[in-house]
C-alpha cells in the first residue's frame, strides 16, 4: 500500500513538474471588453436560436443561426439585412471574394452562395471518401480562393477549390501532432492553417499544404485545463488581418487571443474563479476589418462585440 502511495505521489509531482517546466503558463497582455450585445431580448430582428459560426465580410456579419436552420446577414449596428433558408444545421460560415460558404452539419453539404444569398453551387454528401463528409463542422477560405473544411467525424481537414473540386486532405483520428480528435473549426491566414482540434483541447497550425508546424493549448493529447493558454474544448478559431488567432474556449466560457505563434495576448469571458460568466458557450468567433471581435453564445442566443486593447 505504501509503495502505491509513494508511486502516486511521485507521479503527481512529475505531472506538476511537467506542467510548470514544459508548459508555459501565460497571462494576458491586453484587456478585452464587450462593447455591445445583440440578443433576442434587445434585438427582435435577430431572433437567434442557438447561433454558432460567424464570418465577417464586406462590412457585414454573417451568422449561422443553427437551430433556425438559416444564415443571417447583419449590418454592423445589428440590424438584419437578409435571412437565407435551405439548411438543416448550418454550423459554420465563411466569406471570401464576394462568396459565402456554409457548412451544413446534418446534410454533409457545403453550400456556396453570393453575398445576396443566391445559391451558386453545393458539394459533399455522406461518406469517408475524397470530397465526402461526415458532419462538416468548420469552414475557412484562403486568399487564393481555396476552401478548407473541418470534417468532424472523419477527423480530417479537406481542401477544395472555390467550386468544390477536391484538392487534398490531412489528419486522421489521434492524439499526436497532425492528428485530430473531432476537429470543429478551421481558420486560414495568408500562409498558415489553424485547426480547432476540439477534443484534443488544442490548436494546431499547418501550412496551406497540410504540413504540421506547431500546436498549443496546455499539454495537448486530450488533456484540458482552465489556466490561461489552455482549453476545455477549443470550439472555434479565427485569424485577423494581423495574424492574431482567436479561440472560442467553450467550457472555460471565454475567448482567448494569441499571436500566430501561440503566445497569449488577451482573454474575454470568465477568466478567474468567482468572476461573472459573460458567455455561457462561445460557439463562434470572427474579427471585422476594424479589429472588432464578434462572439456567438450558443445557449444565450447572443452575439457580443468585443474589443481588446
Amino acid at each position, binding site marked *: 500500500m505504501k509503495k502505491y502511495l509513494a508511486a502516486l505521489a511521485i507521479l503527481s509531482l512529475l505531472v506538476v513538474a511537467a506542467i510548470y517546466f514544459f508548459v508555459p503558463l501565460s497571462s494576458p497582455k491586453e484587456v478585452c471588453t464587450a462593447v455591445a450585445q445583440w440578443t433576442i431580448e434587445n434585438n427582435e430582428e435577430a431572433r437567434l436560436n442557438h447561433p454558432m459560426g460567424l464570418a465577417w465580410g464586406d462590412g457585414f456579419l454573417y451568422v449561422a443561426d443553427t437551430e433556425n436552420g438559416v444564415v443571417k446577414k447583419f449590418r454592423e449596428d445589428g440590424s438584419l439585412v437578409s435571412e437565407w433558408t435551405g439548411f438543416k444545421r448550418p454550423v459554420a460560415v465563411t466569406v471570401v471574394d464576394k462568396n459565402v460558404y456554409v457548412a451544413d*452539419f446534418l446534410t454533409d453539404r457545403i453550400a456556396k452562395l453570393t453575398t445576396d444569398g443566391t445559391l451558386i453551387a453545393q458539394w459533399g454528401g455522406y461518406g469517408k471518401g475524397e470530397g465526402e463528409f461526415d*458532419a462538416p463542422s468548420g469552414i475557412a477560405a484562403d486568399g487564393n480562393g481555396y476552401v478548407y473544411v473541418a470534417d468532424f467525424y472523419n477527423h480530417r481537414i479537406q481542401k477544395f477549390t472555390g467550386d468544390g473540386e477536391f484538392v487534398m486532405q490531412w489528419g486522421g483520428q489521434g492524439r499526436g501532432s497532425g492528428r485530430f480528435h473531432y476537429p470543429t473549426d478551421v481558420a486560414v491566414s495568408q500562409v498558415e492553417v489553424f485547426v480547432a482540434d476540439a477534443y484534443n483541447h488544442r490548436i494546431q497550425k499547418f501550412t496551406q499544404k497540410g504540413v504540421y508546424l506547431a500546436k498549443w493549448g496546455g499539454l495537448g493529447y486530450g488533456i484540458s485545463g482552465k489556466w490561461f493558454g489552455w482549453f476545455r*474544448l477549443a470550439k472555434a478559431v479565427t485569424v485577423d488581418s494581423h495574424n492574431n488567432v482567436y479561440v472560442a474556449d467553450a467550457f472555460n466560457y471565454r475567448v482567448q487571443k494569441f499571436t500566430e505563434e501561440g503566445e497569449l495576448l488577451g482573454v474575454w469571458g470568465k477568466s478567474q474563479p468567482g468572476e461573472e460568466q459573460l458567455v455561457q458557450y462561445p*460557439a463562434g468567433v470572427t474579427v471585422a476589418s476594424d479589429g472588432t471581435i464578434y462572439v456567438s453564445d450558443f445557449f444565450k442566443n447572443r452575439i457580443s462585440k468585443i474589443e481588446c486593447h
Partner: protein
Amino acid sequence: MRVGLKILTLIAGIAGIHLLMIQSGAAGDKEIILSVPGIPGPYCAYGVEKRLLELDGIVRVELHWKDETIRAVIAEGRTVTAEQIRTAVKLADYPYAYSIIAP
C-alpha cells in the same frame, strides 16, 4: 448530487432499454425520447441527432435543451428498435449517461 443523478440516470437507462415501447403520440406519430441529463453542448446533441436521422424509419429529431431530451419521430408503420437507438448513440460517440424512455 451530480453523481447521484448520473447513477439514477444509469439505472433508469438500463430499465428503459429493457422496457422500451414505441407508442403513438397525440397526432398519431410514434416517437422515442432520449433523456440526456447534463448534455453539455451542440456537437453532442447534433451528433446524436445526425446518427438517429441516419436510421431507416426516423423522420424527424427534435432537440429540447431545457428538458434535456432528444425526441425521435418514427414514420407511420415503421419500427425502430432500442438496439438501433443504442447503436446510433454509440456511433455518435456520445460520452455521457443517457436513457431511452417511452413517451
